[in-house]
């Protein structure tokens, strides 16, 4: 038989807790968030660097009131860049209270921020990493639709498509069949580097030029053993993370790796850097990326 005092005390605790919660829930505190009836949002917050680039590319820039700390492009975005706003640790309360937005675009739902913002009556677009080009185009158009810039968005998408097509057309004869290895990060000197496979977003760009990746791993970003890289002997090597100031890899450090000098790309000095930021985003600067790839191929062909 349960002792009376224990029972009483536990019941009291339970009742107190349940009571508080019941009162809180019963009071009309959970009123329906006013559905965002703002058709063309005038206050936009973006905590996705890609979405920031998209917004400014389609002409919605003037209505952007805050972007996250990593949104460093274009230059106009720098004016509303908030160093304290971090995409990985956002605060719905802070965003709501400080910026009073009508539309927020995120690529990453941390800290229940999407739900929190929606409860605050804000429209939220959750645009996570695009798996391929058509996904990226869809995101631009979705952003266009949400910001009453659909026409501009479609025009932008069309422009990107045309540029990519023309670059690809010109570069294919030179690039088709070339083998390449795209390194996205190398944790430490002798550890296994991470590569972007043919199935990654950027891998698909290479694919448009007919180039062959040394790996077709479906995960998109496999860690490769150095043996496998050396054995596959790529003709070209690309570095997606190559700013020495933030720990990136330089062609020089690649050459100093043991055994790598036997790789064709290293021996022939065919190591090319890509724009770091563009390489990790899926926005309008895919054109920059594909131009860089094409230009690297042309350089390679000139020398070999």
């Amino acid at each position, binding site marked *: *038989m*349960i*002792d009376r*005092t*224990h029972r009483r005390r536990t019941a009291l605790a339970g009742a107190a807790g349940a009571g508080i919660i019941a009162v809180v829930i019963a009071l009309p505190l959970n009123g329906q968030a006013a559905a965002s009836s703002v058709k063309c949002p005038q206050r936009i917050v973006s905590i996705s660097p890609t979405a920031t680039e998209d917004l400014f590319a389609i002409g919605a820039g003037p209505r952007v009131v805050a972007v996250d700390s990593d949104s460093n492009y274009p230059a106009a975005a720098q004016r509303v860049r908030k160093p304290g706003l971090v995409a990985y640790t956002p605060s719905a309360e802070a965003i709501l209270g400080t910026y009073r937005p009508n539309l927020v675009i995120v690529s990453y739902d941390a800290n229940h921020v999407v739900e929190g913002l929606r409860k605050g009556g804000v429209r939220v677009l959750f645009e996570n990493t695009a798996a391929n080009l058509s996904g990226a185009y869809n995101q631009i158009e979705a952003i266009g639709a949400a910001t009453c810039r659909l026409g501009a968005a479609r025009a932008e998408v069309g422009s990107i498509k045309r540029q990519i097509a023309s670059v690809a057309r010109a570069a294919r004869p030179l690039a088709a069949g070339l083998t390449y290895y795209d390194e996205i990060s190398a944790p430490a000197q002798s550890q296994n580097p991470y590569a972007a496979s043919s199935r990654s977003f950027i891998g698909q760009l290479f694919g448009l030029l007919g180039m062959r990746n040394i790996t077709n791993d479906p995960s998109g970003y496999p860690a490769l053993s150095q043996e496998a890289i050396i054995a596959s002997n790529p003709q070209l090597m690309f570095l997606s993370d190559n700013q020495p100031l933030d720990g990136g890899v330089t062609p020089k450090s690649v050459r100093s790796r043991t055994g790598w000098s036997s790789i064709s790309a290293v021996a022939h000095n065919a190591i090319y850097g890509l724009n770091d930021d563009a390489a990790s985003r899926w926005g309008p600067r895919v054109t920059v990326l594909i131009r860089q790839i094409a230009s690297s191929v042309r350089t390679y062909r000139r020398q070999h």
Partner: protein
Amino acid sequence: MTGIRLERVRVARGDRTVVADVSMSVPQGAWVCLIGPNGAGKTTLLHALAALIPHGGAITIGGAPLAEMPRRERAQQIALVQQDAHVPTGVRVADYVMLGRTPYISYFGRDGRDDRRVVAEVLTQLDLLDLADRQVGQLSGGERQRVVVARALAQAPSILLLDEPTTALDLGRQMQVLELIREQQQARDLTVVSATHDLTLAAAYADRLALISCGALVAEGMPHDVLTTATLGEHYGVPLRVIHDPDGGVAVIPLRAPTPSPDATV
């Protein structure tokens, strides 16, 4: 009636027989001390009596088989003081002794007025009332041993089992603890079964001795009957001499290798 009867009791640990065919009876109110070399099976036998390990053969308490006794009733009848009783540091003496009332408190219950009265009585009888608020970890060895015995007595048992209750205590404290147990035994009509290495003290306090060697009961009876030079010499395997004191005490004297001495007599 709480006499203990052991009939052909066997205890095995794994595939090793530790206690083999021990038969004896402990009359109610008597103090039987188990003696014998290390590893003879004394602790194992005590643990079997406390129902901590299964046994073959039969152990009956006042006629009722130990193995079939309900758990709570068993805990209210039999109290065990272990050799190295683990005492949680920082616990107050009064709270520690109160733990001995567990067999009388329901599963989710709390100590009641009766329990608190019993604990107060035990603390008084064992001269621990002044220490009731102290932490057990801060007590001296002798005081701590009294506290452990107090916890066992708080169980209000009819049978008290003690495994080496006086190891690590000096002679004075040893006698103190044993006097205490003797006194409580008489006051509460307890049946006591203890195990010890100290043959002399065993002879001084126990009513009967039981010599266990290699798991078997090899001698049992009054101290001066069990403690003979021949018997002990054979089972302990060392030269010794037993002296019977005219007042009834028995002393066991180890004999070292003879050295030239003017007094040497054998």
